[in-house]
């Protein structure tokens, strides 16, 4: 039996050869349970050798349906859920949510309440940036930084516990105020914390800033250009690291931020090192704000007087006055009566602009609440910046973006 021998023409032969010697792409899945994905992010990557040709972040592993939940409970009941967004800075989330609802209700909170909120938000910023810094250090092999930052966070947690009763999920802010006044002598202990934190922060940053190994891992790595950062809706230190001086505390001041002097650090190149520098400097500025807040801490009420239909009356009044008891009962069962309308408020949180878009049809429950989470937007740039970087730099890049999956997935 004759064997048929095909003689392919030279072009086809060349094409075949090209296919044969074309670099083989490897597909690699990182996460959702991986130490450097800081939670449950999963990256579906395509590698050519060690270089990424494609990166598809898969999010949603921590999706709890917060927006659906918000549509089914009263405004006051949702406060604890905001703790669980960016769980590294619950106090800042509480404040952003409260201000959004207050805008809808047309409430003005007194100066003391604003000062308490700014103070706690800045402490939360320090706490969140410390964790980001420590985890970033860990990602690039600097173990000591995490130990230092956890030590400082412990000091902050003690202060949070004294103020709010909880270390982690504080639920401190109420719509129209805060849950309680600052305890006796607490402000002095915050100052004492700042006094010991400033040198400790310099010591911690000194471990990284001029560290040759750290610089080799971060300088020029994961560059996000100004145009890209804006196009992808990045906010917070990630946007400022790329050279855009956007800080909502400065540009659209809320809660009395206009009274305090602070600088907005801005990066020049948009690489991982710039983002690290921005976070370091922001902590220094936060300490500066905290000192100013405490220096002119206003006296007076810590909840809005005209918030009778929103803010539960003081417990002693509830137990002694019939009218206050009825008022409290109505607030608990029907929720605070918020007028119809829609409002969108963004606060400058540690991770970026946390926005609450609330659509109300009147009554005690929002019709629709959208949470614009900064981590979600910050991660959306990954498919763009990851292409062409080395596999090992992806870990650096993730660390420098400093995201929290609880907020990303909601």
């Amino acid at each position: 039996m004759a064997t048929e021998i095909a003689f392919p023409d030279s072009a086809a032969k060349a094409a075949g050869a090209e296919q044969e010697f074309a670099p083989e792409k490897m597909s690699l899945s990182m996460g959702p349970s991986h130490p450097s994905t800081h939670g449950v992010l999963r990256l579906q990557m395509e590698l050519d050798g060690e270089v990424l040709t494609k990166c598809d972040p898969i999010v949603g592993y921590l999706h709890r349906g917060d927006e659906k939940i918000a549509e089914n409970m009263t405004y006051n009941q949702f406060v604890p859920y905001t703790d669980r967004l960016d769980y590294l800075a619950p106090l800042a989330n509480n404040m952003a949510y409260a201000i959004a609802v207050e805008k809808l209700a047309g409430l003005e909170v007194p100066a003391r309440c604003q000062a308490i909120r700014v103070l706690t938000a800045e402490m939360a910023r320090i706490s969140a940036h410390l964790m980001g810094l420590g985890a970033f250090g860990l990602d690039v092999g600097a173990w000591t930084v995490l130990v230092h930052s956890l030590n400082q966070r412990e000091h902050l947690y003690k202060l949070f516990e004294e103020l709010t009763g909880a270390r982690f999920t504080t639920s401190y802010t109420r719509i129209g105020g805060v849950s309680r006044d600052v305890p006796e002598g607490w402000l002095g202990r915050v100052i004492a914390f700042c006094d010991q934190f400033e040198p400790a922060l310099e010591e911690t940053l000194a471990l990284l800033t001029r560290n040759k190994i750290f610089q080799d891992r971060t300088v020029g790595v994961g560059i996000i250009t100004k145009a890209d950062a804006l196009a992808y809706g990045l906010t917070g230190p990630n946007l400022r690291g790329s050279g855009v001086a956007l800080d909502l505390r400065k540009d659209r001041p809320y809660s009395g931020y206009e009274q305090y002097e602070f600088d907005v650090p801005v990066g020049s190149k948009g690489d991982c090192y710039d983002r690290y520098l921005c976070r370091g400097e922001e902590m220094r500025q936060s300490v500066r704000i905290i000192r100013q807040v405490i220096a002119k801490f206003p006296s007076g009420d810590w909840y809005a007087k005209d918030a009778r239909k929103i803010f539960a009356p003081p417990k002693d009044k509830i137990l002694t006055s019939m009218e206050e008891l009825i008022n409290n009962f109505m607030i608990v069962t029907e929720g605070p009566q918020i007028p119809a309308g829609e409002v969108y408020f963004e606060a400058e949180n540690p991770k970026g602009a946390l926005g609450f878009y609330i659509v109300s049809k009147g009554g005690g429950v929002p019709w629709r609440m959208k949470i614009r989470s900064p981590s979600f937007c910050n991660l959306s740039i990954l498919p763009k910046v990851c292409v062409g970087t080395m596999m090992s730099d992806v870990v650096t890049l993730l660390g420098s973006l400093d995201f929290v999956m609880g907020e990303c997935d909601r």
Partner: protein
Amino acid sequence: MSASVDALSALKAKFPQVTDRASRDCPAVDVPTADLVAALKSLRDEAGFDLLSDVTAIDWAEGATPRFTAVYHLYSTTSHAAVRVATPCTGDDAAPAVPSVVALWPGANWHEREAYDMFGIKFEGHPDLRRILMWDGYPYHPLRKEFPLAGIETALPDLEVAEETQAKVIPAPMVGGPFVASSGEMNLTEAEPRAKDESWNERSAKPQA
């Protein structure tokens, strides 16, 4: 604030069908679906709204026209002004549609995927419209008003695991949960508590499972 008012008056002059939208904070407009991309492009290029903060949607419940509204929040990094642009979705309830703005802001990609995932809104021209928070193949759009809070029984995403373990995604047990109210003008005494298990109360003990 005046920067955004000026920008919107210019927009209204350019697109006569653009109307003011009620808002309690930043100026807002309603844009017809056909003009959406052109209007947003004009806001970005001529009025300097370079940052797309957010894209989302609202479900106005079954029977409402329009059933779904897409909402865009723009921010200007130069004038620090913000505007809201809303547009009704075309199409029927099962497949509402709105043009995609990914070509203007690549960052809209994930926001639109989320709105598709949660509401089933088709963003026409989106390069990669698939689910983002729920898993691929999930049969419902959870933020639609007809989707119950407790969830609906669904197969596990991984069929192999589902077959092996015989497990399913089951509705959340919500007895004693915090969900007491629902939105709108409904009398809350009637609505509350929707997830309550009526088989036990203060007088008769909880049945042993």
